[in-house]
């Protein structure tokens, strides 16, 4: 079955393509910030609650610094040494594009599973 073919290209600054092994943590962080600003610990707890993944501190801050460097999130004024972060418009667009790509892959996989293996 031939479908629309997507060309692979170098990741642009406003996408998650250039995050490599940090694409997973970056997606989780952006998804967590999609409903409002959060500081580091709140982010960790929220991600753990909705994804079942515990982001370790070093990994969390490596991803946060990369996201901030690319303008996908921004830091707010710190509160008692805790600094909240919020999603930028570029971050929202990058997250939407990334999740749409993932949904397309998930849809294809689920459809083929249903065709070949039946529904559970």
């Amino acid at each position: 079955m031939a479908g629309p073919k997507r060309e692979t290209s170098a990741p642009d600054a406003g996408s998650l393509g250039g995050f490599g092994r940090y694409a997973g943590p970056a997606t989780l962080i952006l998804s967590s910030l999609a409903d409002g600003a959060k500081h580091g610990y709140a982010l960790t707890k929220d991600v753990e609650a909705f994804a079942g993944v515990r982001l370790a501190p070093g990994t969390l801050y490596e991803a946060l610094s990369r996201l901030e460097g690319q303008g996908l999130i921004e830091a707010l004024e710190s509160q008692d040494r805790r600094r909240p972060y919020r999603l930028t418009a570029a971050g929202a667009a990058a997250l939407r594009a990334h999740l749409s790509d993932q949904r397309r892959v998930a849809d294809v996989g689920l459809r083929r599973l249903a065709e070949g293996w039946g529904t559970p």
Partner: protein
Amino acid sequence: MTAPRDASARRAARMLRWYPAAWRGRYGDEFAELLIAEFDEQPRSWRRAVDVVRGGLLARLTCAGLTGHPLEPAEQIRAGLATAACGLATCLALGIAMWAQLTIGWAWAPPGTSGPTVAMVAMSASVLLLAALALLAALPLAWAVARSALRRDGWCVRRPALLAAAGLVTLAVGSRHFANGWPGTGSHSWAQPGLVPAGVAAFGWAATLSVSAYWAHPAALAAFPVAEITWMAVSPAALIAAVAGVAALVRRIDLPARTLRYEAWLASGAAGTMIIFLAGACWWLLAGASGPGLFHPGAIDAASVAVMMLALWMARRATSQARKSALSSRLL
């Protein structure tokens, strides 16, 4: 602050030391708060400790311009050039020690096989080219340092400039002094004409006297004159001071884009030249040698080549990231 929180804060501060100062300045407070909250929830976790160490080392590599992300482009270029300078200086120090040994060996008697001959020609040509590149790189930097240091707010440049100057002067004066007593052929009638002037070989030998297998043989080392042992300890400190001073200058001086482009180009050229030098050194190691003992490679030469390869990889990566960053920001 309660006692447990106080203890957690101290523990968090200790873990934060894995990260570079610049990173701590930006993220230190909030990261410490996160760690303290994590300690409350899960007091001990080796996975967390490993993750923090890994994150700290990665942040240090990023600060050194080796990961290409996420420094601001001009900062990335400066960091890359400073790291390249450190890597190339390490290569050069170990390489000169090896090269001086061969030049002295050649002065005693020319090599009997092609291995050391080819290696010596390649290494000598590389050293000559590296010296020219170092001079070309130093001139605009020295000019920029002089201009910055003379300004009223030039204190942040004066300290590394003084450190670099003190290191270089100590190295030059000490090497000149000890070169006068080098174990070469001097004016012996049986001396062979070497590939390079005897004075240059002697200077190279004296400057890198600390790169020696004698450190592993304390009894033999103890038989050396005290002044020589002192110089073996002082000369690497002088070299480190000089390189650290130059690296700090490169990071602190606001060099114009054209000069950054020029320095990045020279650093690439120096890294390429160092590959030729290393190829010569490897040729010598693999081909073996005949002739006087100085032509026979030892374990320290193999170890030096291994360290040089690592330092050269670091320098090439730093240079490549600097050039990439400059291209992406249209600085080049």
